[in-house]
């Protein structure tokens, strides 16, 4: 029968030296809100669970000194939602956190788990993409920095090495005047996996001409994706009606949604357009 060994390493070093990490038979446990479900459904059968909760390097949200912030991978979704640094500097992250799951889930779930689980519907990932997040990946011998976009490979697939842990997430400083938003669409107001999510970061000049823009689409492709053609189409434009519907259409064309028990591909695609338009409109006033 299925047996699991459970460990609670006290330091990052200790965690990375564990047998289960070296052999690849173990799994890191953060909030467990994805992992334990997968174990229960027998999607995976690890031999060891290595709980990351005691490890100090994985905790806290700090300023980095160059205007950005560093978020420990084990910071909970509730922690993200309530962090004053995030609320002030990266509000789309806080919005996404607020929309994730239920209060019980938010109390346990972590940002690291949300990223490494690599679900195309992961709420925190869209904002991380538009904020150009850098992931700090640490193994016993090396530490490397990878852009989130390069880290995510497909559903449940990432560039995380067998012996690596995600230690922290770095969000670079944003040019002044950048506004950002995360819009999530589901069938009900809470406890909902996104049918569609749209994240937008936008900066325009004093005349309302868009100088820079990043758009990420959630739950409409094998992974959370950037809508680059839509972004390009926006640059140099004003947010007028014509631009809005043109960009919304391009965003719709940028995605590859599926049909499932929750919604049809057509509906998801249509919602990409609606949310993109609404997101841009909500940022229209900010510069």
């Amino acid at each position, binding site marked *: 029968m299925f047996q699991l060994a459970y460990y609670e390493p006290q330091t990052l070093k200790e965690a990375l030296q564990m047998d289960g990490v070296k052999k690849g038979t173990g799994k890191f446990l953060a909030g467990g809100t994805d992992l334990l479900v997968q174990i229960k459904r027998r999607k995976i059968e690890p031999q060891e669970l290595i709980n990351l909760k005691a490890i100090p390097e994985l905790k806290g949200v700090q300023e980095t000194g160059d205007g950005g912030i560093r978020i420990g991978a084990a910071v909970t979704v509730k922690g993200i939602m309530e962090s004053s640094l995030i609320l002030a500097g990266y509000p789309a992250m806080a919005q996404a956190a607020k929309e994730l799951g239920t209060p019980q889930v938010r109390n346990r779930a972590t940002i690291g788990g949300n990223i490494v689980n690599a679900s195309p519907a992961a709420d925190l990932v869209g904002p991380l993409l538009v904020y150009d997040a850098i992931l700090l990946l640490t193994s016993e011998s090396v530490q490397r920095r990878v852009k989130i976009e390069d880290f995510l490979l497909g559903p449940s697939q990432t560039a995380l090495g067998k012996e690596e842990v995600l230690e922290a997430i770095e969000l670079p400083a944003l040019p002044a005047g950048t506004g950002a938003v995360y819009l999530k669409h589901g069938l*009900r107001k809470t406890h*909902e996996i996104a049918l569609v999510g749209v994240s937008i970061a936008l900066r325009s000049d004093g005349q309302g001409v868009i100088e820079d823009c990043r758009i990420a689409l959630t739950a409409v492709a094998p992974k959370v994706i950037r809508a680059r053609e839509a972004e390009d189409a926006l640059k140099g434009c004003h947010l007028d009606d014509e631009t809005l519907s043109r960009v919304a259409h391009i965003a719709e064309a940028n995605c590859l949604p599926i049909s499932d028990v*929750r919604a049809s591909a057509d509906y998801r695609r249509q919602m990409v357009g609606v949310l993109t338009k*609404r997101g841009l409109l909500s940022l229209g006033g900010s510069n």
Partner: protein
Amino acid sequence: MADKDLKTKWNLTPGGWNLEGVPAYQDEKRFTQVGRSVPRVDGPVKVKGEAVYTGDMILPGMVYGKIKRSTYAHAIIKKIDYSKALELPGVLAVITGEEAPNKWGIVPQAANETVLAIGKVRFYGEGVAAVAAVDEETAEAALELIEVEYEPLPVLLDPFESMARAGEVLIHEDSPKNILHEGEQVYGDIDKAFAECEYVLEREFHTNYPQHGFLEPQTALASYDPQSGQMHLWASTQIPHYLHRQLSIVLEIPMNKIRVTLPAIGGGFGGKGEASIAEFVASLLSRKIGRPVSVTFERNEVFFTNKGRHPCHMKVKMGLDKEGYIKAIDFDNTLDKGAYSGWGMVVLFYTASMLHLPYEVPNVRFRGRSVYTNKPSTGAMRGLGGVQPRWALECIMDELAEVMGISPYELKMKNAIESSHTCINNMFVPHSEYKKCLETAVEKSGFLEKHGKLPFGKGIGIAGGYYISGTAYTLYQNYKPHTSVMIRVDTEAGVTLMCAAADIGQGCNTVMAQMVAEELGVHYEDVHVQSGDTEIGAFDLGSFASRLTYASGAAIKMACVEINQKIKETAAGMLGVRADQLVLKNREVYSMYETKKRIPWEKVVEAYTSINGSLVGLGNFSPPRRKGIDIVTGNRVQGANIGHSPTFGFSAQVHEVEVDVETGRIYVKKVTEAGDCGTPVNPMSVDGQVEGSIMFNLGACLYEDQKLDANGKHLNPNFHDYKTPTTMEMPEMDTNIVESYDHTAPFGVKETGEGAVQPTFPAITNAIYDAIGVRFYNLPITPEMVLKALKEKKAVEASSK
């Protein structure tokens, strides 16, 4: 007992109401305990997490049972090999269908389910074998070692396909058309009536396949004592009696050797209104191994075994005369029964009886059939048989009002029934405040000022409904009282009510305590309730058909007659006044003429019991039984006894919605409800029931639907994918209890837990029409449907320009 006492005790009105000896100036409605908003007796332990549910119980030596389930929706079982499972250490027993071949089902004429499938499976997830093991993990591992060989049969998921292909595929060999039952009821001359109508509309409506969504899954703990042959079953059920009876049939043990006990129960809404496989499997395994066995369903097993609401495919035709009076309804209903009969026949004919109220309808034709499919069976679900036809009728009336150019409110008021109404099928409504419900809901919501006048995307809709209160018939031929209670009064336990009523979370233990307290003249806090046990309590049919407040109330009143008489006689001696001039109220006994002559109630009890021992009173309730006949011809009509009830509760609702025309999402913003529940025994509980009712059907109207793939496999058997509304979807609610008192009912009570689910579907559907000009005839109304309909509407408007 003296002759005189006997006379008073048995001289009751149909509602168990004793009118004798009540001085004219004493107002029977001046209650002190009934009408109090008291907290639930079971509230504190539930809030603190201390309530003990069946799944919390652990008995010495207890082991766990698990069920192996079919991976085909329709297949012949060629072979079951469980030898490997038996070899697994920790496995104690394996059973298959052959060990309990007796058929069970709540309606005995049609009982056709076995505990585990024998020879053939008829829905995906049907049980084929069960295991007892020392722990759940071992039991689960054992299930995987059981090898079942199937020969797949064609899967019929649609009732029309099922009927059409009956020549080729039969779901039950004894139902040659794949139909459980079909029936016709005709009252009056329908064709003549339609010919005389000024306005006639015909529409088709299709409802969905929702489930109750109770929090506690079915759970059972059985302990069989081989020495005495006694079975004790703790179970999460609404129907201890019917379960008791069916256990006796399946186990072939007499009922007096089986005891059913209900621990705390986490909701039922009709889903626990039939026995569950968990109960049979726990009992069979316990008997086999001589140890207690606990079986708790996983959530997906709750979906697999279902017993939720019947999808109905309804063709409705309604005709009005020039003034707008309803002259005729022609109604054709095809119900999707799923795999086994269960409540089926009863639900079929409830959908027929529901056509006769809350409006006066002189000519009615019903044709219906309940059709087997290879889906998890449908069954009883809050508002059984009423919700689907009510939706169709209230929507078609909304359309008819528009055709006539009058307000739907006016059309409803014109046709609404009043007290002392006899329907054409001989259903009798002693009392109705339905018109007051409509008036109140309309006034408080400002319906008339808003309807048809709100900006595009915003809308308001109105609908009414009703439900039976109590039930007139048992499900098997029997004339015994539907409820019996016993009340014990002494200095040791104070006041104790002993009965077999099932408090499944609806709060009957609280209202029963209030009614006992009212009748004895003490406080509700003084009353202990021992319910939900077939051995300690006396007989009760169960929690369904919104019957408990009425039935228990009547039996309680009767049980108190004897006790009060003895208290009065004792107090009379102590006070030196006549017994028949004494009043029992607020823990005191006093003379109604010389109010200074008073004595604490407890002192009287002490005086009585110190000489005679404990005081015990017994009470019964038997509902009036009216035959379902055509009152014009006097002819009996098949199935027409169903739907009769001692009294009826009513509700009217106004829903205000906002439709996001870009995303298609529908937001119910505000609900104004007014209900006639007779005397609200516990107004706070009434509010809870009504708000719960509205949320219940708001969910089934906009979100909830069980989905199956082409092979009949569930696509959303969990609360992640089967979406129920959360508290965040809850609209602002203004619920109102209209002044009402039914003189034929104990304490003037009626139901409130099922009438208020009836108007929700149509009020929302009508509000959506008011908002975007689109009428929907399919449920649930999803955002995708809204967008599609808006697109079609736009295309039609463009082409007509």
